[in-house]
């Protein structure tokens, strides 16, 4: 039966993930070869596409931004002992509120006021959408997983109705709101760099990326550096002990979900204020669900989540690059490839641990652990 493997932190958090990633790529390579493509070319394109060029890197970061938001949304709820499958819906409603704020004020407010207002509106929207399931769980015992799934569907219906019947420009075929005015555009990174005289390709990467970093740091500080975070984790790990300590579980539960919702709500800032500059139907497309994988692969820790988000961002961008460069490499092959990478670097993450532990022990006995294991990491 599986004995837990005691690995030093640098091995567990540094080397093991790299090993898993290597394994994942290797296996994917085999699969790729099986369908008659050159694995080396595919893997290099994947990596090149994601990190090789300024544009590629920017896209990777742009996707990562969204995943950091949804990943953190899952993690905060998780530390509160809740499984939040509702990131999807919370992101939709958050985006909706941000967009409504923009549509209402973009013509009157300057960017300096408009953008913060959108952030607040977005966070508020997500928060509100998460608060209802949270309250139902806290006072009615309705299981959060069910309610959040339901709220995802309800959110999509709400969004569809508003777009088709209320927000759509009359006479326009497309299911989207009017474009936001300049003041509601989150400045793109290329624009800012251009002002500094730095040449940068035009990509969706926008200031929201800083918002995401701030969110990650904020969540980390909140959970491990503040009393509120302490109370939240206590309730998540041991509700009865929390009650004994005089911490009211219900309010912690509400707080956890509302923070989670607010984080998910910020997706709209990256996607709508940052890129689309208008409200449209599927701007979330699965980011909420991806957030679950991101959070768990990142061990529900902000640092881990940022890394995992980068991984997924790279998979998205590198995947797109693949289908650009190799027409035979369809969108669905990309999905499959991503699936395999999640499987091996996420779900099977512990398969290599025992071996690594044995090796490490063996190396330590030879007092040469660091050097060798370090190399093994990149092998």
């Amino acid at each position, binding site marked *: 039966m599986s004995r837990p493997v005691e690995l030093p932190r640098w091995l567990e958090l540094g080397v093991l993930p790299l090993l898993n990633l290597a394994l994942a790529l290797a296996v994917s390579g085999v699969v790729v070869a099986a369908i008659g493509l050159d694995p080396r070319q595919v893997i290099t394109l994947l990596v090149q596409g994601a990190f090789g060029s300024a544009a590629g890197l920017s896209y990777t970061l742009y996707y990562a931004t969204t995943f950091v938001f949804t990943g953190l949304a899952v993690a905060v709820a998780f530390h509160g002992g809740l499984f939040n499958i509702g990131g999807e819906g919370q992101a939709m409603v958050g985006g909706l509120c941000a967009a409504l704020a923009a549509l209402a004020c973009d013509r009157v407010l300057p960017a300096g006021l408009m953008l913060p207002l959108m952030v607040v509106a977005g966070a508020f929207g997500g928060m509100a959408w998460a608060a209802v399931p949270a309250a139902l769980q806290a006072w009615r015992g309705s299981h959060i997983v069910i309610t959040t799934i339901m709220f995802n569907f309800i959110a999509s219906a709400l969004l569809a109705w508003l777009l088709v019947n209320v927000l759509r420009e009359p006479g326009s075929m497309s299911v989207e709101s009017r474009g936001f005015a300049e003041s509601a555009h989150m400045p793109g990174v290329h624009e800012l760099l251009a002002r500094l005289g730095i040449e940068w390709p035009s990509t969706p990467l926008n200031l929201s990326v800083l918002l995401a970093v701030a969110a990650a740091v904020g969540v980390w500080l909140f959970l491990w*550096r*503040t*009393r509120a975070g*302490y109370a939240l*984790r206590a309730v998540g790990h*041991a509700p009865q002990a*929390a009650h*004994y300590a*005089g911490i009211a579980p219900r309010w912690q539960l509400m707080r956890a979900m509302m923070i989670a919702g607010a984080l998910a709500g910020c997706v709209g800032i990256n996607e709508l204020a940052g890129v689309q500059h208008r409200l449209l139907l599927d701007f979330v497309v699965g980011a909420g669900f991806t957030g679950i994988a991101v959070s768990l692969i990142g061990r529900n820790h902000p640092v881990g989540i940022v890394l995992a988000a980068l991984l997924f961002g790279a998979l998205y961008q590198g995947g797109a690059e693949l289908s650009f460069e190799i027409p035979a490499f369809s969108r669905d092959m990309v999905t499959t490839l991503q699936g395999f990478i999640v499987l091996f670097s996420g779900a099977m993450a512990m398969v290599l641990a025992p071996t690594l532990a044995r090796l490490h022990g063996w190396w330590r006995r030879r007092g040469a652990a660091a050097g060798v294991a370090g190399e093994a990491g990149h092998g």
Partner: protein
Amino acid sequence: MTLAVEMKGICKRFGAVQANRAVDLRVARATVHGIVGENGAGKSTLMSILYGFYQADEGEIRIEGRAVRIDGARAAMGHGIGMVHQHFMLVDNLSALDNVMLGAEPDWRLGPARERVRADLERLMADTGLQVRLDQPVEALPVGECQRLEILKALYRGARILILDEPTAVLTPQETEQLFATLRRLRAAGTTLLLITHKLKEIMALCDQVTVMRQGAVVLDCPIGQTSLDGLAQAMVGRQVQLGRQDAPPVAAASAGAPLLRAEGLGWRDAQGVPRLDGVSLALHPGEIVGIAGVSGNGQSELLEVLAGLCAPQAGTLDLGGRRFTAGGRWLDPQTARALRLAHVPEDRHRLGLVLPFAAWESAVLGHERRARYSGPLGWLRRTVMREDTRRMMEDWDVRPRDPQLRSAKFSGGNQQKLVLAREAMAPEQPPQLLLVGQPTRGVDIGAIEFIHGRLRAMRAAGGAVLLVSSELDEILALADRVIVMDRGRIAGELPITDCTETALGRLMAGASAHEGPSPSPHPSPT
């Protein structure tokens, strides 16, 4: 004489902890072999290895002279080994009956299987005197009953070699006696018994041979005849240990002065409407230790919870620190309780006392995290202060290992208990005047017991009051100034310590011990 069990050079480490180092153990057939040692000495680990629950890193095991490989509980059973685990191995939401059956079902259909097991168990309960309500889900059973269930489980499987890891920790004297009678009978019938306990009296009473462990290694192994209580204690902790009463029983006037806490007519019914507390009134005066005796499950836990503000009663009032709380109105809550300098050491340290996944320093401030000392502006945690205080608590209360960063779950039971006690007794800024303690020394080694008792006395000396709930009469006799006995949620009687004898208290408690736990037909409460 032939050896039933022989363990040679057993080594086992858990991560950083070396739980067993080169342990040798030789157990003769049809004897009772005692194993004693401090908390964390490695007793349970050694037995779990014999039972195949853990694999030894090194060493060999011989059963009946033959070298064997025990790679799991099934293999152990194959060799006729059975075990009563220290931490109950029970499934909460299954019935007691199902828990006994599990893994040893005589039929693949549950219906017939239950029939047959029930019949066997009825017989077993009859001649061991260990009574358990077979159809109750385990979560509804008080600890004492769980312990009896755990023992029945092992006996039911009819082992030739039976390991009992602290089987008496939560039993009443009567139950303990019955259990020992059974064990003697088993020994006579040729069963080999290994008994782990912190109650040296029991060792002396029952064992033929005793092994003393310290920090994972064997330090003494001799026939019971060649040692004594003090000898064992000495070997265990490496110094003289003074248990039992230190001070002269107080003069009756001890409990003078205005009470720090006064409760009147507390009544509390559980979800099923069964009264767990029924017209309970008591007062705590400065400078006294009040003991609450009684078979576990007769309202002691509930009393503690109500007084600590963990749950609100349906009837009664409470006067504490100049404030009055009335049932129905806003009852005391844990935060207020702490503010009013009332501290509470819960019975169940795993569920209530600690957050097991937390680092020790995080668990060591549980309930005090709001104090200005720990949370700065904007609720910023003062982590260094917390770690420092934790280190001090660990120094003060001799918690091992002394590592504030270690996860709470990684400490052995006894050390976890000390950590909780340290936290409650040393509450920063304003140390408590009132201490409610439940089973403070359950599963704690004698060294620690002596130490803990000393601390409680010190608190009394400092003018504090202690409400001590314990199923250990020895403990109550050693500490209390007066003793209240509870029976089915009501106060069955109160005795000044001077009139207390095991038998006197036993008689008062006996009323309950026959039909332990919440009785289906509650007595009419006096109006």
